């Protein structure tokens, strides 16, 4: 298949949309959300299932009677769908607006937010940290909602967890109370609690704006994650909760990803531990080998020493005996001497060590050296030198 460039794909999409009569000069009904005033007016309108990005260019805005400036306002917008290939975005290019509802609920939301903010329910210092490796996760949401299935799907693919689901009504009269009850029943019994539901209109999400729920979240000793709606929705429980995420799926992902990072860290740590110990043992083994060599040499020397004493004794006793027997013993001493030399030189060869002598005596420790000349025996020959300084 012949690959096409990104720009070419963008052009195809742009042309398709531009030539689609159902997307030109249309009226779209929705609720204003995510409003941001910059040089131009950027915002979205949404319903239960979808969000549509909108733009009002400042040149157009100055000619419009009313502007949909307030989040939560119900509007009908006139415009055409255009694309913005740089951002892979499609949007409603608005040229007119009819306000359908003044957004009473939104006003109420702002008042509630203001009140609880003043009371300190959103205070950062009151926020608890979410445990990085929870064993028990509580979820308060509708058993029948897609939000629960979305979360469970993510959890099932992660490390093992015990999940406790408490069914709650997530919209309509009394919903806030059932969510608050769910929170209370899980409080202290799990490591973290997620409260949430999928996206919706401000009315549908209202339970998460109610004071009763806000206070329950605040009082909850177990850390709470607020996971309400889709990206653009903002509710009071988001501000009170210890952590806010934009969707229920994101809540599950946050927990799973943190755990996975920790498991990865654990793997690296144990690997490092084993490596360090192995290195340590290797170097200990080398030191041990040196000691072992020294020990073997001493053994040979002591055997030689015995032979010398023996020789003397024998010499004393056998004054009358033939000299060639003595010569035989002398010869054996010579053999032992050679053996000793071989062992020692083998040792030097192995490790690259040198034997140091002063006044004909082998010296092993710095403390027993005195200043002045010394001789060194190496694998391939002798050296002579001078001791200038001694540090012990």
């Amino acid at each position: 298949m012949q690959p096409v460039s990104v720009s070419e794909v963008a052009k195809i999409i742009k042309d398709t949309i531009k030539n689609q009569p159902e997307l030109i000069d249309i009226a779209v009904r929705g609720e204003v959300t995510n409003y941001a005033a910059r040089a131009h007016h950027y915002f979205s309108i949404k319903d239960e299932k979808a969000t549509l990005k909108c733009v009002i260019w400042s040149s157009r805005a100055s000619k419009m009677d009313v502007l949909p400036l307030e989040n939560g306002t119900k509007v009908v917008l006139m415009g055409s769908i255009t694309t913005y290939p740089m951002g892979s975005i499609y949007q409603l290019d608005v040229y007119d607006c009819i306000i359908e509802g003044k957004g009473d609920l939104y006003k109420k939301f702002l008042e509630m937010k203001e009140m609880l903010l003043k009371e300190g329910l959103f205070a950062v210092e009151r926020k608890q940290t979410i445990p990085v490796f929870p064993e028990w996760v509580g979820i308060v949401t509708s058993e029948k909602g897609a939000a629960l299935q979305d979360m469970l799907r993510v959890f099932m693919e992660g490390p093992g967890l015990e999940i406790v689901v408490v069914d709650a009504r997530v919209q309509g009269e009394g919903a806030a109370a059932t969510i608050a009850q769910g929170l209370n029943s899980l409080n202290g019994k799990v490591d973290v609690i997620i409260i949430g539901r999928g996206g919706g209109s401000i009315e549908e999400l209202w339970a998460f704006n109610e004071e009763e729920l806000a206070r329950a979240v605040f009082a909850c000793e177990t850390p709470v994650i607020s996971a309400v709606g889709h990206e653009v929705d903002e509710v009071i429980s988001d501000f009170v909760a210890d952590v806010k995420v934009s969707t229920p799926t994101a809540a599950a992902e946050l927990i799973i990803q943190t755990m996975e990072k920790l498991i990865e860290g654990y793997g690296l740590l144990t690997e490092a531990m084993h490596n360090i110990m192995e290195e340590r043992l290797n170097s200990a083994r080398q030191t041990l080998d040196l000691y072992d060599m020294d020990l073997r040499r001493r053994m040979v020397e002591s055997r030689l020493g015995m032979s010398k004493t023996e020789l003397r004794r024998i010499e004393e006793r056998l004054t009358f005996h033939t000299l060639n027997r003595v010569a035989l013993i002398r010869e054996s001493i010579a053999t032992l001497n050679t053996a000793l030399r071989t062992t020692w030189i083998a040792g030097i060869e192995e490790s690259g060590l040198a034997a140091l002598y002063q006044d004909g005596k082998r010296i092993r420790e710095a403390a027993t050296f005195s200043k002045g000349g010394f001789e060194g025996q190496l694998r391939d020959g002798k050296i002579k030198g001078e001791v200038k300084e001694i540090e012990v």
Partner: protein
Amino acid sequence: MKFEEILEKLEKVTEELDNDNIPLERAMKLYEEGVKLSKLADEILSKAETRVRQLSESEN
């Protein structure tokens, strides 16, 4: 012990172990402790299989 506590201890053990100046005997002790900790962690990870249960009305 919780997984993150084990990890924290393991971190300390490895850090001390990484110091060449500690005697071999101490290093062996630390390593032994580290291996024990990692066994505990492995146990947690191996038994873990996600289970979902509903909190019933009566427990509620």
